[in-house]
C-alpha cells in the first residue's frame, strides 16, 4: 500500500478497538491508584459523553446528506484551489457561523475536502470554527472585554490566513493521505 494511504476499514476498526481497550486499561489502573480523581473523571466522562451522544448522530446525518446532495462542482468552484480571495472569505464566514466543539467540524471538513475545497480554505474554515466562531465570541466579549476580544479576533484572522498558505504548501496536492471513507 502506498505510504500515507488509508488502511482498509477492517484493519482500522480492529486497531481502534484495541487502542480503546488499552486506554481503558490505563484509565482503570490510574483510577485505582488515585481514588480522589475518580469522581471528577467519571463526571467529565459522563458529561462529555452526553454532549457527544446528543450531537454526533445529527452531525453524521448532516454529513451524509451533504455528501449525497451537494454537487462537487459547487464546492470546487467556490472553495476550491482557484477560488482565491473570495474562497478564503467564504471559508472564514462558514467557519464563524456554526456552534459546537471542534470535533464536529472534522466530518464536515472531510465532506468539503472530498468535493474539492482547497487545503488553504479548509485550514481557515477549521481555525475559524475553533477559535473565532461568533457564538463563542459573544462569551469572550463578556469575560475578556472589548480590547482583548477584538484584538484577538483581528490578529487571529491575519495569522490563520497566513498559516493557511503554509498549510497548503506543506500538504501539497496529494489526495492519498485523506482516507477514502471514515
Amino acid at each position, binding site marked *: 500500500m502506498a505510504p500515507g494511504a488509508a488502511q482498509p476499514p477492517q484493519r482500522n476498526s480492529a486497531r481502534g478497538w484495541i487502542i480503546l481497550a488499552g486506554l481503558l486499561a490505563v*484509565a482503570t489502573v490510574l483510577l485505582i491508584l488515585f481514588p480522589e480523581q475518580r469522581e471528577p473523571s467519571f463526571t467529565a466522562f459522563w458529561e462529555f459523553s452526553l454532549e457527544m451522544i446528543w450531537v454526533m448522530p445529527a452531525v453524521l446525518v448532516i454529513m451524509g446528506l451533504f455528501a*449525497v446532495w451537494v454537487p462537487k462542482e459547487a464546492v470546487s468552484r467556490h472553495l476550491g484551489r482557484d477560488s482565491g480571495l473570495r474562497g478564503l472569505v467564504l471559508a472564514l464566514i462558514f467557519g464563524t457561523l456554526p456552534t459546537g466543539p471542534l470535533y464536529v467540524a472534522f466530518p464536515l471538513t472531510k465532506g468539503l475536502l472530498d468535493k474539492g475545497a482547497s487545503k488553504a480554505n479548509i485550514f481557515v474554515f477549521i481555525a475559524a470554527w475553533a477559535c473565532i466562531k461568533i457564538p463563542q465570541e459573544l462569551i469572550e466579549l463578556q469575560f475578556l472585554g472589548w480590547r482583548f476580544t477584538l484584538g484577538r479576533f483581528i490578529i487571529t484572522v491575519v495569522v490563520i490566513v497566513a498559516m493557511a498558505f503554509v498549510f497548503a504548501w506543506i500538504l501539497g496536492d496529494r489526495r492519498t493521505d485523506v482516507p477514502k471513507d471514515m
Partner: protein
Amino acid sequence: MNLTIISINAIAFVCLAISLAKNRTKTMKALRAAMRSGMNLAPTLLGILVLIGLIMGFVSPETIGRVLGEGSGAVGVLTAALLGSILHIPSLVSFPLGGSLLQSGASVTTVAVFITTLTMVGFVTLPMEIRVLGARFALVRNGLSLLAALLIGLLMGAVL
C-alpha cells in the same frame, strides 16, 4: 440541553425532512453512509471520552489557574501552549478561566496562547482527526495551529 445541541439537531432534522421529501433513495443512501461512519468512528470517539475523563479528573481549573497565573515570561507562555494543546475544555469554561487569569496577573500573551491552543490544537481529539482526515493532515494542521497560537500570543502582547 444547550443551544449547540438544539441548533445542530434542528438543522439535521430540517435537512433530513427536506431530503426525504425530495428523494427517498438519496436520503437512505445518506443515512446509510452516516451509520457506517458512526460505526467506524465509535471506538475512536469512546477513546476520546475516556481521555477527556482522565484529563479533567486529574487537572482541575484551579490547578490551571495556579500554574498559568504564576508563570511569567517564556516559561509561562510555553506552559500555556502545552496545557492548551492537551486540555479539552468547553469554551464556556475556558473564557471565564481566561478572564480570571488576566485579572490575577497573567500576561495577555499567555491567555491568548492558552485560548488559541485550547480551541485549535486538540491532543485529545487527534485520534478522531487522524481517523477522519488522515495523519498527515491532522499533524500538520495541529502543528501549524500551535505555531499560529504562539504568533497570535506574541502579537497580542506587542499590541495590547
